[in-house]
């Protein structure tokens, strides 16, 4: 390492260090992992959404040459069902989670019934067709509200009316009174449709068992390797945690889907132990759609109450949240805490109350999907604020302004059981977005075009969200069953190279680059000298993983703190070498020196060499520079912003053209603008996809109609606009980096931005609300009534 001053890395839009490998085909994704002696698993999945299994005959499959074994659910009763780690408040005592394979009853199309292990994947797949299952079909319910109706099919004996959670927040009596007495009340039913996360790389597991030591190794495409290790050992297999090593290879996107434990992890480990061979299972796209987690699926009745001059006085909400046939790892908390506690958004609303009724339905499990609860909340409040403005005949920007939480009121308690919003200043983001599109002139243009029979719409979304959920003590109060801190170890080797290990990890978002930038600056070393090691439970400290836009705010802060501890030690050692008092030593630009004498400095490299050899450590100091931090933040962070879209709707066909998309996002301090913009682009695309294209549809028999990419409309680049992105910067006081998080903001801000624009465009047709996605046919139906 040289002693020369390095340019600050924080704030620089450098390209991602992960990319050269990943985009030239040299990555190592799960399906690239091949082990000696590896056998391949395929799963027979239920074609019925609800059926009793009368019998299973696996004899023909077992007899197929190349088949090693065929297992059914009853073979695997020696391991526990999957755990649910977030039984939120209001949780009924009916925790129904999946087993490795279904036993006796299947409850959704795609529920695993049998697994074949064979010499290759083709034989395994062929054998699936040779298994005879005698099913007795049962009645099916797929709608989260209808599931609670009297006489609805019951999924689990211990869950009357299919209810998992009855949860509420806010002030019920005050809200009822506010709604009853308000001069203006607008009521709406708002559906937040089911979505499929669709990471480019599907999920899967490869398990190896070493019988001489009873040790498992599991490779899985994961956002949380340490959590997977904990849940699989302590909760499912009942073995010591140390008997499993979990490795996440390169992860090709997750969007939440790869946080959770899945049956394939269990049956691969179980079969690997049984057969003494490594077992590989990688789901195909059809299986990813059918059997990995989905997102959203809310049906909500909402009333917004206020005065004629645009003051919102009350908000009353009742939401039915579909959680699928069983509980996924953190599903109940997503539908409650991450949603219900932020439904007032950026507004100061004196009376608010929300009921959430979460239910079992004969569908794939629903869990956190990019934004996880907050997109549902911001969609709801931003649609209703527009609805309220339309009712009053008031400009939607004016209603927003009149109800924004004033900047003087931070930290702000919204009355819904969150810790106070950390910091915020909402009007400047709105103002900046309005100035960017020249709002006043745009409204005039809109009026002029309407006179010519052209339908322009302007959609506004002012959002706030919750990132880096913490502290652990608060989360535990929400039913979260573990920690929400993150770990980082920083050490400086003899050559001056910096090695960081962390329980957090990149899963496509580029955080390895961001981490290296902040550590380089903190220690004053070249960025290239910082190595970030992650994704393997062997060699990284325990940590909770990457989700909830927490990686930088929580994991990054842990690194900063470890680096600062190292600097303290460096100062003590420098004081010894310079024969000075430690209190008189300063550290800057990678050098330690006596205050006022920077020319007589010890570089970090010199100190690292000295400490690594450790031949003459002073005063009981240990050799080596090596510090670890387990950082539990004092609060969540609350990014915010305003998005504005301009759309044109063509009545002849119902087509929507997004003409402009302007986003002003305040994610606190920005470490790497290129990565933040990339995250916002992708996030906005996913919200826009929900507004215009994507819809996971089950028919009344529980068949997944949108079960292929020929039916589920993930937009391609040509279907999306350019994004005009800018920022306001309100540093978070929660962490020393002042960062808030950017992974989900785009998604949380965008769906309602597009829908508000489409509905604005259609307002001459009398439209006040329509459900997503705003497909051409739905719009055509409106324009041709």
């Amino acid at each position: 390492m040289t002693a020369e001053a390095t340019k600050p890395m924080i704030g620089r839009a450098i390209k991602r260090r992960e990319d050269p490998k990943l985009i030239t085909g040299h990555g190592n994704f799960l399906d690239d992992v091949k082990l000696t002696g590896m056998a391949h698993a395929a799963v027979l999945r239920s074609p019925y959404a609800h059926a009793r299994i009368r019998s299973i005959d696996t004899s023909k499959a077992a007899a197929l040459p190349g088949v090693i074994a065929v297992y059914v659910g009853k073979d695997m009763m020696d391991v526990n069902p999957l755990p649910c780690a977030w039984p939120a408040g209001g949780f009924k005592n009916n925790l129904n989670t999946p087993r490795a394979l279904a036993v006796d009853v299947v409850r959704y199309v795609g529920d695993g019934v049998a697994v074949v292990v064979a010499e290759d994947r083709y034989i395994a797949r062929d054998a699936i067709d040779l298994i005879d299952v005698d099913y007795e079909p049962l009645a099916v319910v797929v709608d989260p509200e209808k599931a609670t109706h009297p006489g609805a099919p019951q999924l689990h004996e211990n869950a009357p009316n299919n209810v998992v959670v009855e949860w509420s927040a806010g002030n019920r009596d005050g809200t009822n009174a506010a709604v009853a007495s308000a001069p203006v009340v607008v009521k709406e039913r708002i559906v937040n449709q089911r979505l499929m996360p669709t990471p480019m790389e599907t999920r899967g597991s490869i398990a190896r068992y070493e019988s001489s030591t009873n040790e498992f190794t599991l490779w899985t495409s994961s956002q949380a390797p340490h959590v997977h290790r904990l849940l699989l050992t302590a909760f499912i297999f009942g073995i010591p945690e140390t008997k499993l090593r979990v490795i996440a290879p390169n992860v090709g996107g997750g969007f939440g889907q790869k946080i959770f434990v899945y049956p394939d992890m269990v049956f691969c480990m179980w079969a690997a132990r049984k057969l003494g061979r490594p077992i590989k299972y990688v789901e195909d796209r059809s299986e990813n759609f059918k059997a990995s987690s989905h997102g959203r699926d809310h049906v909500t009745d909402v009333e917004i109450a206020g005065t004629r001059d645009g003051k919102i006085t009350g908000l009353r909400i009742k939401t039915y949240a579909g959680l699928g046939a069983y509980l996924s790892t953190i599903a109940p908390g997503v539908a409650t805490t991450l949603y219900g506690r932020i439904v007032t958004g950026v507004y100061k609303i004196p009376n608010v109350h929300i009921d959430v009724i979460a239910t079992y339905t004969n569908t794939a499990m629903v869990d956190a999907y990019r934004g996880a609860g907050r997109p549902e909340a911001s969609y709801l409040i931003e649609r209703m604020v527009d609805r309220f403005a339309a009712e009053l005949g008031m400009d939607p920007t004016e209603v927003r302004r009149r109800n924004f939480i004033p900047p003087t009121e931070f930290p702000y308690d919204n009355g819904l059981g969150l810790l106070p919003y950390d910091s915020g200043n909402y009007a400047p983001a709105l103002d900046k977005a309005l100035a960017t599109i020249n709002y006043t002139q745009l409204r005039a243009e809109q009026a002029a075009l309407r006179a010519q029979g052209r339908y322009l719409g302007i959609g506004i979304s002012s959002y706030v969200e919750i990132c880096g959920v913490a502290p652990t003590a608060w989360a535990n109060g929400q039913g979260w069953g573990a920690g929400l801190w993150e770990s980082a170890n920083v050490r400086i080797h003899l050559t001056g190279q910096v090695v960081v290990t962390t329980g957090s990890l990149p899963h496509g978002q580029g955080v390895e680059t961001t981490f290296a930038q902040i550590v380089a600056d903190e220690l004053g070393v070249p960025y290239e000298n910082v190595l970030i090691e992650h994704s393997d439970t062997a060699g990284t400290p325990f940590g909770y993983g990457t989700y909830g836009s927490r990686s930088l705010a929580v994991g990054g802060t842990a690194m900063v703190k470890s680096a600062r501890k190292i600097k303290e030690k460096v100062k003590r050692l420098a004081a010894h070498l310079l024969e000075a008092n430690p209190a008189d030593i300063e550290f800057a630009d990678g050098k330690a020196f006596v205050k006022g004498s920077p020319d007589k400095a010890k570089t970090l490299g010199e100190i690292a060499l000295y400490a690594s050899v450790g031949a003459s450590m002073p005063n009981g100091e240990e050799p080596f520079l090596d510090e670890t931090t387990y950082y539990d933040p004092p609060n969540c962070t609350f990014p915010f912003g305003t998005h504005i879209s301009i759309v044109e709707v063509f009545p002849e066909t119902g087509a929507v053209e997004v003409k402009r998309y302007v986003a002003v996002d305040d994610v606190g301090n920005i470490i790497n603008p290129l990565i933040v913009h990339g995250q916002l682009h992708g996030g906005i695309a996913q919200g826009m996809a929900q507004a215009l294209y994507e819809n996971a549809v089950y028919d009344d028999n529980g068949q997944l109609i949108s079960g292929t990419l020929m039916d589920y409309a993930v937009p391609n680049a040509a279907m999306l606009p350019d994004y005009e992105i800018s920022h306001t910067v309100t540093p978070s006081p929660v962490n020393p980096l002042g960062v808030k998080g950017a992974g989900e903001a785009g998604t949380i801000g965008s769906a309602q931005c597009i829908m508000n624009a489409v509905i604005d465009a259609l307002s001459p047709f009398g439209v006040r609300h329509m459900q997503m996605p705003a497909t051409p046919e739905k719009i055509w139906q409106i324009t041709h009534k």
Partner: protein
Amino acid sequence: MIPAAFKYVKASSVAEALVLMQQHGEDAKLIAGGHSLLPAMKLRLSQPSVLIDIAGVADLKGIANKGNQLVIGAGETYHAIATSAVVKQACGVMASTCGDIGDIQVRNAGTIGGSLAHADPAADLTAVFLALGGSVTAQSASGSRAIGADALFVSMLTTALDAGEIITAINVPVLQRGQGAAYAKLKHPASRYAIVGVAAMVSMSGGSVTSARVAVTGAGPQAERQAACEAALVGSNGDATAVKAAADKAGTSMDYLGDIHASEDYRRAMVKVYAARALSAAIAQARA
């Protein structure tokens, strides 16, 4: 999404492909680009026991302007057709249609012969081929014959090709002065196939339309000519009123399909909208 086991053989000529087809009989399928066949095989909706690969067959390549006819080898890819100067000059609608099929990967592999032989109800080229009134050259062990566009498509995914026949070339007219052809498409948001696609070819003389051929794809179980629409346009001056009147007759006597993206009613309405667009564009070209 793992296909059932199959044998794979590669033909180096049409003659060899025909021999292989005879050898393997009904269990064999020809494969060129594979963009329709492989997805069906991966879902096990199709389980041929033998694939005869004709993607590299040189006899199936070649694009030539023969004066009145543009002859395109059945093995030419969409990309090759979309970017061919010969095609653009002779029959621009073929190039522009091929340039908007699927995505780059699909266009690099998918072939015109494969598309017409598969007769997917939502394919683009079926309608364009019908509107142009082209023909295919079909070769079998016993010789070759021409099958006219109007005779080629029998029903959903079914053509008039015999079991032992291969399409070797596609013949479409070279558009002359006074002629125009266009294709207008409403894309399926997931598959980018046509929810509704309308192709039109018109000939004009002395300011009036002397002939018109219009075909619809995507909306129903197979690509179909629109006789009432054509008849309404012939003899008119091709102005906006005439186009509207003709387009309103499109899709009036055909079967429709519906799905979660577009109902039968919506497709019925869009056939008229896209017929008007295709006709307007074709007429503008004929007048140019």
